[in-house]
């Protein structure tokens, strides 16, 4: 699957240009964090890279319909139990019943939802839903995992635990492509950073370099918390 390359990708919706000339390469390696202000186009970019949207211009390779797995910014839970939600994609992936059960149980355990396995998923609290969505995508053991602000609703301890989970997944060789508004989290996880602003990739740099001193004035303002709408 890797590397995934976006070349001069444009995207528009509802008559509004959303992404313009996005070129970037995702190589095997530590997590790539996509950061930028609200409305910069991070979620749209993830959807494009995941394969849910098609570029209006430019291209993304490999051209497989869907690349890897994704956790959406707003989790979509099926009208089933927590366990049912976990097993659905595993069944779709063609895993046997036993393997499904094994993986689902392990995934629930990992995000601390084992006790809620039989609850209707859509009744979970915000943070519980987010953890379920992450567990569900991770259980697929994809080679690329797109995470759209996976910790936005998590409490401090859960955030740390999920960060550890993500780091663990990355260590097992899965490429993490993730957005976050928590710059501390970005620092802790990122191998490289893509800084997006107003639909353009302003810079793509190794994380250490980016946080030490970004190349662009916009990114610097963003890091100082001064890049306001």
């Amino acid at each position, binding site marked *: 699957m890797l590397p995934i390359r976006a070349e001069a990708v444009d995207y528009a919706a509802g008559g509004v240009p959303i992404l313009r000339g996005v070129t970037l390469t995702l190589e095997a390696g530590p997590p790539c964090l996509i950061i930028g202000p609200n409305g910069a186009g991070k979620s749209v970019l993830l*959807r494009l890279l*995941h394969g*849910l949207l098609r570029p209006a211009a430019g291209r993304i390779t490999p051209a497989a*319909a*869907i690349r890897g*797995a*994704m956790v*959406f910014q707003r989790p*979509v839970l*099926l*009208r*089933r*139990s927590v366990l049912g939600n976990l097993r*659905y*994609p595993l069944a*779709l*992936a063609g895993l046997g019943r036993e393997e499904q059960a094994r993986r689902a149980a392990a995934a629930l355990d990992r995000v601390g939802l084992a006790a809620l396995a*039989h*609850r*209707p998923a*859509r009744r979970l609290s915000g943070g519980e839903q987010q953890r379920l969505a992450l567990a569900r995508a991770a259980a697929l053991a994809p080679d690329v995992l797109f995470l759209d602000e996976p910790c936005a609703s998590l409490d401090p301890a859960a955030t740390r635990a999920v960060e550890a989970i993500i780091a663990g997944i990355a260590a097992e060789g899965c490429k993490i492509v993730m957005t976050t508004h928590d710059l501390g989290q970005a620092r802790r996880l990122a191998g490289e950073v893509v800084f997006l602003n107003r639909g353009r990739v302003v810079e793509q740099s190794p994380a250490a370099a980016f946080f030490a001193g970004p190349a662009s004035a916009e990114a610097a303002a963003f890091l100082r918390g001064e890049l306001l709408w």
Partner: protein
Amino acid sequence: MLGILGLSLRVSLTALGIAALVGLPLGALLAVARFPGRHALVIGLNALMGLPPVVAGLLIYLLLSRSGPLGRFGLLFTPTAMVIAQAALIAPILAALSRGVLEALWEEYADQLRSFGAGPWRAVPTLLWDGRFALLTVLLAGFGRAAAEVGAVMVVGGNIEGFTRTMTTAIALETSKGDLPLALALGLVLMAIVLGVNMLAQALREAAGRGGA
């Protein structure tokens, strides 16, 4: 009377079952898939909700009549013919209504299911299952239409006493005889049965709903 009632129920429910087997997946597929001609198909199905029963009846009549293509099976004026006519009549209704209902659900699910790699064919059963409570009303609409229908069953069934006479054709007969009280009484009995079926469906729904939604 009991025989007529039984036949009515049997024909309507069988037709509903067949129509559901065709119509619901078709509706779900139309909610899910994007292919050339989909738009025309949706409009066509919506329009078919306005197919006059007599016309549907006539088409089936011509099909099943001994000079028609399926004539050698001798199905005309049998309960089987009535089931076929009613199924043909309500399948488009089920498809059009379920498409409408499931499109809302698909709007919510589309990205997630596609992300799981579910193609249209795999998304169809998922939508049907997760939308089952909303589809109940659609099924009840189809059942109502079948139970109330007289034009098509009259043409292809022939309202033959003791063989293809249903509640609705009996009501039409009594009406033409001028026996309005009897016609109304039969209508009440039919409505009571329909009500019973609806109550049963509702009870089933509630029992299922308690299991978790």
